[in-house]
């Protein structure tokens, strides 16, 4: 910045620190709650400092879970979430990169129609077609299964657009040189385009992993068997009972465990995360 004004610098840091605290406070409270015993939530105010029961709360939730809430141990739900998030991310990336490749590097009848068909998925979030989509999945016998959790969510217009946008910036001459060098379409895709897309794939994976992890409505609809509960929807069931029977320590331990994987991904892969987020929205 141009001026050197100590007051302005102070104000800047103050704003940021207040921002960071406000953003972190709800999670801090949750963490504190997850370290106490059940009895600590009877009094008038939640505890504000850590308690001694952290390890036992977490291990209890991880290994046993609250059977009263009809939810399995967190370990199972975390595994389901992991399978779902990774499969959705990988699935979206594969089918989108193939579609984008077809649309950019080939000319064929109905190319425009294909593009618009993919585009339309942007306008049909699951929230607006809940019942008929549920019916399709149910008719296909995909309720209470991994494919039912995953496949209906793997169409992706944004990922297709990101790859299309990226392919358009790859110099035409690269494909021409590869053709002169004797590479056919599949060889060019594998040897040249895929390696060049590595960063985009990684960035997209981060975003899509989070997308898959935080899904709530869809798992809520298609799973009734607790074997297939994902952690995000399982937590809701825990919380629903927590109010009547205040086991906030367990609920919050579960909340912390459910948040941790995607938050870690964001923090550890911040550069890719920012790139993925900003570029998919173009």
């Amino acid at each position, binding site marked *: 910045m141009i001026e050197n004004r100590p007051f302005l610098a102070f104000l800047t840091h103050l704003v940021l620190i207040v921002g960071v605290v406000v953003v972190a406070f709800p999670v801090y409270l949750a963490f504190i709650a997850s370290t106490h015993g059940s009895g600590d939530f009877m009094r008038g105010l939640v505890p504000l400092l850590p308690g001694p029961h952290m390890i036992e709360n977490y291990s209890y939730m991880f290994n046993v879970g609250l059977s009263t809430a009809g939810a399995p141990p967190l370990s199972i739900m975390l595994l389901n979430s992991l399978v779902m998030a990774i499969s959705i991310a990988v699935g979206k990336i594969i089918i989108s990169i193939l579609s984008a490749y077809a649309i950019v590097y080939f000319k064929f009848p109905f190319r425009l129609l294909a593009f618009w068909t993919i585009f339309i998925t942007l306008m049909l979030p699951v929230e607006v077609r809940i019942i008929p989509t549920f019916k399709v999945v149910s008719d296909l016998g995909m309720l209470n299964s991994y494919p039912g959790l995953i496949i209906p969510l793997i169409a992706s217009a944004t990922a297709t657009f990101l790859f299309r946008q990226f392919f358009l910036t790859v*110099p035409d001459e690269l494909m*021409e*040189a*590869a053709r002169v060098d004797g*590479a056919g379409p599949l060889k060019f895709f594998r*040897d040249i385009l895929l390696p060049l897309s590595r960063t985009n794939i990684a960035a997209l994976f981060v975003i899509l992993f989070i997308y898959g992890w935080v899904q709530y409505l869809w798992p809520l609809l298609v799973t009734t068997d607790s074997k297939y509960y994902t952690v995000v929807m399982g937590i809701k069931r825990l919380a629903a009972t927590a109010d009547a029977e205040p086991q906030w320590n367990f609920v919050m331990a579960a909340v912390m465990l459910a948040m941790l994987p995607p938050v870690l991904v964001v923090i550890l892969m911040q550069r890719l995360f920012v790139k993925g987020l900003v570029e998919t929205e173009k």
Partner: protein
Amino acid sequence: MASIDIKGVKKVYSGTVTAIHNLDLSIPDGQLVVLVGPSGCGKSTLLRMIAGLESITDGTIAIDGAVVNAKEPAERDIAMVFQNYALYPHMTVRGNLEYGLKNRGTPRDEIDRRVAEAARILEIEPFLDRRPRQLSGGQRQRVAMGRAIVRQPKAFLFDEPLSNLDAKLRGQMRIEIKRLQRNLATTSVYVTHDQLEAMTLADQLVVMNGGRIEQVGAPISIYERPETLFVAGFIGSPPMNLMPMDGALGAQAFASLDLPSGTDVVGIRPDSLVVSQPQTPSASFSGTVELVEPVGGESHVHMRLAGSSDIMIISVPGRTEIVEGAPMTVYAKAGDLHPFNHQTGKRTDTPAANP
């Protein structure tokens, strides 16, 4: 090695825009042929049709006697050097050189031998394990050439390969390409918009304009005897002065000369104009010096013709005493004049054009 024969080739885009009109051209075995012309003249399109990167609307292209119209680029046994080099950014230099050979199933030891040889010829041995982005523009250019050489193709196709380099490097690489082509004696087609590059490189120069060939010939013969007004204006720097004959000025300047009938434009190269009147019949022009551009070994004098808004450029050797604002008279020998008709766009002293 092979000849390339282009017969009646046409390129029409989306049914309406004609980029190439019925073009015929024979490229003899082992020659370096340069296609030159302004942007949009169809030179790149023609090259890309030879490469197989553009479809051919009509006519045939034959390489080494075999028509290749329906063949994929890879099946035509040609190699191409692109303007932006088109090196595979994620592969090392060695990977780039090898890729085409691997795709063809060349045996490993043969690949190694050819890569080593190309690297030696182009002096890129120290960079073989680097990535393209770690190289300078000139080095990338060499790698692009290397990728073409290792293939030992029937023909090299160059698409403005030097235009991304700075002026000094461009001059240097021009010489190298010429030397390399001489040594390998591989048929080469070279596209450029830079007429100096075209003149210095070409065995045969092909001047194109508006999707047609204007003139084919050795560079110097084209310079000395441009067949059309377009070629006259395009080849040569500074460009040829093209003086219209209509009006008092033209009549007066060329009065004493016996120009072919139908001549209405006369072209004079800037270096054909002299300040002292020659003994032989000559045309003379008077005016005022408007600008003097010293370019080193010679100077370009811009003279505004008296009673006209036309500017004439005169190339004079060395530094000149001529000062801006001074009156000036220059002369051109009758033999140095290039008579044209602007309607046909052709020379008027060619037997065919002047029966």
